[in-house]
């Protein structure tokens, strides 16, 4: 086991996030050690806020957050280098006009020799089956190809943790499978996956149920999904 593997991926202690006067997350405590974690819960329960908090895109109003041992609010730069985030809408994640340039864009802020950047870009394109599309305009791609590109742009940075907020929401079943496979595929990276797809949640090592702004259950995905389904029935 490497040194970093001993640190829990995500730890929270009594964390609250407020928007205006309402607590969107309240008194969240958790310690999530597994490689892949699914986050499930109803619409508006606070899943995205939870994910954004971990990705350093939202601030906690109280409590302490540790992601890979880092404080997202204070060690943001270090967090960015190790954590990548993927969202549902690929259009909002693609920045450059052609596929290869967009992947390379993720490495712009990294201090690497140019040859190394090119090598990593090409390797990532290859790994995601995008080599043939390298020079295509990004806005011409299909939804599935765009999301694959967004994922490729996240993985090219070789992150230790990938946060994905409903990455398959806009995709058909086949593309959803493809994206999920790429995301969860064995590797050294860890994954936090927010999803409404309960079959997909079952594929993770552990699951978290969020309800009305707080974590109500953590455990093996089978049991958590069952608890969630019971919650939905009543």
């Amino acid at each position, binding site marked *: 086991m490497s040194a970093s593997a001993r640190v829990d991926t995500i730890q929270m202690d009594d964390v609250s996030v407020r928007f205006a006067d309402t607590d969107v997350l309240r008194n969240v405590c958790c310690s999530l050690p597994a490689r892949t974690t699914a986050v499930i819960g109803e619409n508006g329960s606070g899943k995205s806020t939870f994910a954004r908090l971990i990705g350093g*895109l939202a601030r906690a109003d109280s409590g302490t957050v540790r992601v890979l041992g880092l404080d997202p609010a204070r060690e943001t730069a270090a967090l960015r280098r190790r954590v990548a*985030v993927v*969202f549902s809408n690929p*259009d909002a994640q693609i*920045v450059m*006009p052609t596929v290869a340039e967009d992947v390379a864009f*993720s490495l712009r802020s990294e201090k690497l020799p140019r040859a190394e950047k090119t090598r990593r870009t090409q390797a990532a394109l290859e790994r995601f089956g995008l080599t043939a599309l390298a020079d295509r305009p990004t*806005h011409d791609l299909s939804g599935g190809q765009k999301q694959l590109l967004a994922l490729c742009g996240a993985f090219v*940075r070789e992150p230790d943790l990938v946060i994905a907020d409903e990455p398959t929401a806009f995709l058909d079943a086949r593309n959803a499978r493809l994206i999920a496979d790429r995301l969860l595929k064995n590797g050294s990276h860890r994954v936090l996956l927010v999803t409404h797809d309960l079959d997909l949640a079952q594929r993770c090592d552990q699951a978290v149920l969020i309800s009305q702004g707080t974590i109500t259950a953590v455990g093996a995905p089978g049991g958590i999904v069952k608890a969630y389904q019971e919650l939905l029935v009543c």
Partner: protein
Amino acid sequence: MLSLYRPGHSLWHRLPAGPKTTLVTLIVLSVCLLPVTWTGAATAAAIAVACYLIPGMGLSELGRQLFAVRWLIAVTALGQFLFLGPERAVANTTRISAALVIGALIVLSTSATALLNALERGLKPLQWCGVDRQRVALLLVVTFTMVPVLARLAGEVRQAQQARGGRVSLRYFATPFLILALKHADSLGDALSARGVR
């Protein structure tokens, strides 16, 4: 202006972004300073054709560019014709069209990455007055990329209105479009931070 980078091997493509921008700016300036006469119009048109033909961009590309700005040309031509007469109308319209299509050569033959790098370098002198050149360069390039996305959002809003049986009115178009565009900008900001942009 919507037409973005087209990969190719013309002389324009091979010229580094910095000198290319300077050269194109100079040509555009001289076209703008041509006399408002029939000869001026012919010279402007000849320069535009030469700028596409000689370095190997091809006349069909010139045609595509002119087609992209056809409404602008039509409106300019009509207005000028009514108020200024044929010679000045033709001369002004030709000069404006020539300047536009020559200016488009930069975007057409420069990849976004090269443009971004050149902008970052070119904006360096502005650093002393507190301009964050990386940010400005990125803003300009991202704006270009966003044009097709915004066009699609606009189309979706219009279609949603038609689907609900409404007449297309600017007032009922502007609000949802603005909200969508702002939401898009918000998500884009998140995605940029997540990809390491400060």
